[in-house]
């Protein structure tokens, strides 16, 4: 069983990091989105490995189901052509600048992760769904309500922004 878990972890790691590299490097934005979906599915698999099946379910439902469709709409509505705006030439040295952007934060966080690691549990336990539901409605009720307000405000704002020009034309 231990060996199976290790093999699954390696496969999911390859999915996550390979999909991520594809999402960043692909010339076509639709292909980049496919890379993103691969990466998200890999993370969902990791949630399953950590005995959090509800999180895996939510990951697939919210990220793959909702956010990726939104990104697909964004690609469609921005009329990105098949070659993509990404395939053109970039300023010289941009790859170096992009590499610099992640080196220092990743180095600092990586140093902390490697040097200060707390005691790790080898076999995680699954949290029953009732406990998560109770937590959402007892201790974190305010945050739960606030996030629904944030979602509502974001959606109302999105509708307002997208229909701005039409509204002006009707006046």
């Amino acid at each position, binding site marked *: 069983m231990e060996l199976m878990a290790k093999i699954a972890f390696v496969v999911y790691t390859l999915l*996550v990091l390979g999909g991520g590299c594809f999402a960043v490097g692909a010339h076509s934005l639709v292909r980049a989105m496919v890379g993103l979906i691969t990466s998200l599915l890999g993370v969902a698999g990791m949630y399953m490995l950590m005995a959090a099946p509800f999180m895996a379910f939510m990951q697939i439902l919210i990220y793959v189901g909702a956010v990726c469709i939104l990104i697909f709409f964004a690609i469609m509505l921005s009329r990105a052509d098949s070659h993509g705006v990404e395939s053109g030439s970039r300023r010289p040295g941009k790859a170096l600048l992009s590499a610099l952007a992640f080196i220092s934060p990743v180095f600092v966080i990586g140093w902390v992760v490697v040097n200060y690691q707390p005691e790790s*549990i080898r076999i995680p336990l699954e949290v029953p769904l009732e406990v998560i539901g109770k937590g959402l409605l007892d201790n974190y009720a305010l945050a739960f309500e606030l996030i629904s307000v944030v979602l509502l405000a974001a959606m109302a704002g999105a509708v307002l922004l997208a229909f701005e020009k039409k509204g002006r034309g009707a006046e």
Partner: protein
Amino acid sequence: MSPLMMYQLVALGLLAIGLYGIVWRKSLVGMLISVELMLNGAGLSIVSSAQLTAADSATGQIATLFVMGLAAAEATLVLAIIVVVAKRFKSTETDAVSRLKG
């Protein structure tokens, strides 16, 4: 290497790829994809530190649910911004929208 550290390193890899992508990409949609990658790294890191240490697991999972909700709200708003930018500038390249009008 403890299991916790392996998951944390994968999450760190996602953060690195996202940070690289947000500078490297030329279009707003590409930057949005990079931000989603980084948020996923955050979620993976939170769940792994909740499930694999003595900390309360339910709290960590609830926190990740909030991260997912905020990611959905953020993606909705960015979609609307991209639609507006595409209408006004006829492209979503970041270089096209880099000038302020005062």
